[in-house]
């Protein structure tokens, strides 16, 4: 039980922490995604920012913007005056940059993005900050180290965990559940069976939100003569209207043609583009179900959780369920209530449940 008298003290009666941060403990859960980075914190803050970082191109831009670095929507809106970085690719910090300078710039953008995400959680300087970051299940060791290193600059102690695992943990579904986390760069599938998932429990592929955007752009190009658009515009259309199956309403959007706004009906194109997600997801589910203990396969099929921004495509849960019925003889798909914050909420819960000695050892 918490009260004012206990403020700053420890459960074990030890004196104030040696960091001199005696006000309290702030837990932060972070979902570091290719498209969005979300944070949930134990002070009630929940924020999300597009994983885009921009630096003024020159002195004039710097004077005009009055900032050294811009993030998220602001960076996207002012991209003409900025050197823009999307430091995460397929859910991890981009590797294989063209030159050392590019690699260094990408790493700096990643560091700044993680710092901004932590600032968004509004930590107090006199509180200990413990953070759990959800990273893609198959992120390389080097990449994990880079994420940890970037976060360590801003928090007292930090841990990484697999993103789909965080989603399941947040919902207290620890056994016989299959999480399908559809991000922008990757779709991660992970089966939970009461212990830490191993490599064999996880499947990752790169058909995700970005693949839908690319397909939609292709479809618009092929069917809307003269329409001018950027991938950002396509992304916004998808996020607003994306669906599979029966159209809830006709999707009419305005795109410029030689400078003149022109209406286009994109209903069929949108449905076709969003449908690219279904087959690979069902393939992944099939792979994880087929290699699971036969006795529990049915249970696993009936507990498929859809999470991540991609799960907001209308009708996706029913479409996956229908495909599972055809290929796996049945199954039940549930979309989590808060796709954007599912990962960060789970990471926050892990942070809360982590024993104190573990945090101390990782400082």
């Amino acid at each position, binding site marked *: 039980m918490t009260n004012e008298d206990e403020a700053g003290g420890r459960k074990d009666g030890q004196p104030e922490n040696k960091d001199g941060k005696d006000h309290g*403990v702030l837990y932060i859960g972070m979902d570091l995604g290719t498209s969005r980075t979300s944070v949930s914190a134990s*002070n009630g803050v929940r924020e999300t920012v597009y994983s885009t970082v921009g630096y003024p191109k020159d002195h004039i831009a710097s004077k005009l913007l009055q900032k050294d670095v811009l993030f998220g929507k602001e960076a996207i809106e002012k991209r003409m005056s900025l050197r823009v970085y999307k430091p995460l690719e397929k859910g991890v910090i981009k590797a294989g940059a063209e030159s050392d300078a590019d690699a260094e710039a990408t790493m700096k953008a990643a560091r700044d993005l993680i710092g901004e995400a932590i600032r968004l959680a509004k930590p107090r300087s006199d509180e200990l900050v413990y953070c759990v970051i959800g990273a893609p299940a198959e992120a390389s060791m080097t990449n994990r180290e880079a994420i940890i290193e970037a976060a360590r600059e801003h928090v007292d102690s930090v841990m990484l965990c697999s993103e789909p695992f965080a989603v399941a943990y947040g919902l207290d579904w*620890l056994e016989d559940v299959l999480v399908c986390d559809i991000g922008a760069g990757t779709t991660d599938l992970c089966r939970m069976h009461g212990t830490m998932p191993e490599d064999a429990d996880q499947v990752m592929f790169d058909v995700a939100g970005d693949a839908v955007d690319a397909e939609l752009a292709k479809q618009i190009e092929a069917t809307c003569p003269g329409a001018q658009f950027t991938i950002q515009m396509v992304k916004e259309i998808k996020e607003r209207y994306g669906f599979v199956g029966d159209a809830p309403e006709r999707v009419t959007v305005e795109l410029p043609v030689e400078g003149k706004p022109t209406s286009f009906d994109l209903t069929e194109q949108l449905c076709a583009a969003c449908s690219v997600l279904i087959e690979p997801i069902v393939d992944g589910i099939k792979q994880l179900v087929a290699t699971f203990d036969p006795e529990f396969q049915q249970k696993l099929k009936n507990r498929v959780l859809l999470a991540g921004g991609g799960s907001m495509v209308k009708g996706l849960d029913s479409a996956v369920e229908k495909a599972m019925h055809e290929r796996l003889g049945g199954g039940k798909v549930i979309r989590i209530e808060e796709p954007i914050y599912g990962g960060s909420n789970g990471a926050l819960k892990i942070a809360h449940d*982590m024993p104190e000695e573990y945090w101390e050892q990782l400082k």
Partner: protein
Amino acid sequence: MAGFKDTLKEAVRQMAFRTSVDKLKKQGVQNVNVLGIDRISALVEAAVYRSLKSRLVGGERDAVAESTKAEFLRLLRTNEDLRREKSEVEKARERAEEEIDVMRRELSQTIRTLAQRLEVGELEGANRYEGEDADIAARVAEAVALTVGGDNQGELKERMTALVMHIVSGERREADAARKALQDREVENLQRRVKKLTQTLEATEARLSQASVEPAIEKGISSIYREVQGLDATDTQAQKKKELMAGIFEANLKLMKRSRRA
């Protein structure tokens, strides 16, 4: 308890905004529903109480209620401190802006004075001796005419004028040097003043621009936890979760060791 109620009322009052009936009418509002502060405070209190009652029992409930009230008062105090500090920063900023305006005016006045002094000095130098020379020549001619007669009068006048002018020019040089030194000191003082004012102006402007760039005082939002938490022992899945936590920790420890080795 009465103190808490008053504070709650004060908080509600602070969060409310003022508007006039005219403004509301302009916005097309004809009727408004009115809810008194006492009623709002009572509702908040009742809601908290009911929520606690439904979730907790006996002493636990009282402890949580007390703790919540204490935390609420603390948050309110923090909020007030923040507001006060913010208004102090804003005042300081306004003061700095006024100072800059005064300095700018003073600087431009000093520069104008300096330019005038330099211009006047040059003009005075050029005109100063023009009338004086003519006056000396006239007086010498007058003296010669009164005392000397004959053909040598013209030559004598010229020689006497040359002699007097020689003496006078020496005196003039000394006077000019003294005057110039005085003027140089004055100009130097003015130049020093301009330099100092410019430096102060630049420093104040830099301070102001930094204050504008810096975000408003942001102390952050307090976590709901005063201490490190950990697994709830009464959780039905506590054992399983403990193992999972250990698994995550092991993986991260391995990562940290690898990173430190590198």
